[in-house]
């Protein structure tokens, strides 16, 4: 179970606002995290620090293939991203780096900024503790759950290729 307060965003949140191009030169995830959402809300890293759930609307994460975008969110404190729909590279990258993402119809209307959410990844259930709404998200396929359970693609590959010491 994942729980946390919701921070809401609108449609077409692109990776240039999630992590603007000039910060791509950084390789330290905590350095990237300091600039998470810099294009929209420079205070975001402070707000996310306690552990939050980001709620987006349509086409969350569109734009560039920069994996640094979900990394910045994850290390800033985002535990999970829920949205009506995701751009595909962002979606793949999030799973790759071990940030759970769920397509959840209705989430942008049934959740308000600051609502307390509980997410059951295994079953794709999202519960809004603040207003009592329960939403059914699209369940993640088995092999994606495996990658997330292993903690991301690197750990998953280490286990499957056998480079794990």
């Amino acid at each position: 179970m994942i729980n946390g307060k919701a921070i809401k965003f609108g449609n077409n949140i692109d990776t240039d606002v999630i992590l603007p191009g000039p910060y791509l030169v950084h390789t330290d995830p905590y350095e990237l995290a300091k600039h998470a959402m810099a294009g929209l809300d420079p205070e975001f890293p402070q707000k996310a620090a306690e552990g939050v759930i980001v709620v987006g609307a349509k086409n969350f994460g569109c734009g560039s293939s920069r994996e640094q975008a979900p990394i910045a969110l994850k290390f800033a404190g985002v535990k999970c991203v829920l949205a009506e729909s995701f751009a595909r590279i962002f979606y793949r990258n999030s799973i790759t780096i071990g940030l759970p993402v769920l397509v959840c119809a209705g989430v942008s209307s049934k959740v308000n900024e600051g609502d307390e959410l509980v997410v059951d990844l295994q079953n794709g259930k999202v519960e809004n503790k603040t207003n009592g709404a329960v939403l059914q998200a699209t369940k993640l396929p088995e092999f994606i759950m495996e990658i997330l359970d292993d903690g991301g693609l690197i750990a998953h590959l280490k286990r499957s290729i056998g480079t794990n010491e």
Partner: protein
Amino acid sequence: MNIIEKILARASEKKTVSPGEIVEANIDVAMTHDLTGPLAIKSFREIGVKKVWDSDKIVAILDHLVPASSVISAGLHKTLREFVEEQGIKNFYDVGRGGVCHQVMPEQGHVRPGEVIVGSDSHTCTYGAFGAFATGIGSTEMAAVFATGKLWFRVPEVIKVEATGKFQNLVSAKDLTLNIIGKIGADGAIYKGLEFCGPTIRELTIDGRMVLANMAVEMGAKAGLIEPDQKTLDYVQARTDKPLKPLKSDADATYEKVVDVDVSDLEPQVAVPHSVDNVKPVSEVEGTKIDQAFIGSCTNGRLEDLREAAKIMKGKKVAKGVRAIVIPASQEIYLNAVNEGLVRTFMEAGATVGNPNCGPCLGGHMGIMTDGEACISTSNRNFIGRMGSTKSFVYLASPVTVAASALTGKITDPTKKVQ
């Protein structure tokens, strides 16, 4: 099956595949660059595999911050140089050897119809212009490809875009592309494939086809393909000795839907801030003041683009107070532009002509904007802060529209004013 299904079926050693199915495909070519490559290398080392799966199938290109713009980017370049040396990767395009990755890839013969190509860059979909299934992936996925040569894909539903009609003078592939994006929307093709067909597409040059495929990702698409024809084969065969295995859609292939576009009356188009699907005919935004005009990028930094722009600018002067920046997309294009006198035309007009690289397109280097400034650009994205300040504005248009606007200092219809 359609062309995308056929390519994915062959790459995953299956007879047939259908939308929604998840397949593991063998990768034919993997491309990485200076901004996403170092992270891929870091992840590759973490996986713990010593050698890449096939050093001949990997291409590394320095293009985003070139020549190095800072101590940090110099470090990124060094990381990539050391990696290609260590791994015996011969297809490496250092500063002064290549240019923007998506131009260099086909130009140097790394793109072939029917193949599966991945790149750690979202505009990898550009190679769909040659009938390849090409798509962008993240750095760690690239590391997984380096290690295994394979990657999972969900077979996408495919939208067919059928273009008919003949372009008016000075209206081009970019205007068609922006028009299609306006119709389909920035999220209209999420996780889907696009296939561009119809007589208008057949008539397009290779340069023009690349504009369409390049911006497929701007509609959320995973890939945007154009069926290979004689033009494709002529281009590709001149650049590679490898045998080609082109594929085409069957006559009875299934599509999720068909979108029709007629270009006969199409006006020049402009995508206005801050969304690529916020597309308007130029007549609605004419007169908007600009501070910078950029001709370049993997969308429109090709020879044909420079020729068209130079025709507009020849013998004229860039408006006072406007910075015009021209960046040929590759060394080959740059040299041709020098030989054809295009560089002279731009310089005499008062434009800056830069070395092949991404330039201001992503706000990393060469032409970053400050608060309140506006740029009209031939590139592909106008997101908030894309070219620098989050309080700056990017308008997207064709090379001739950008050239005409550079001369007047305002967004200008190239078909009316500057002839």
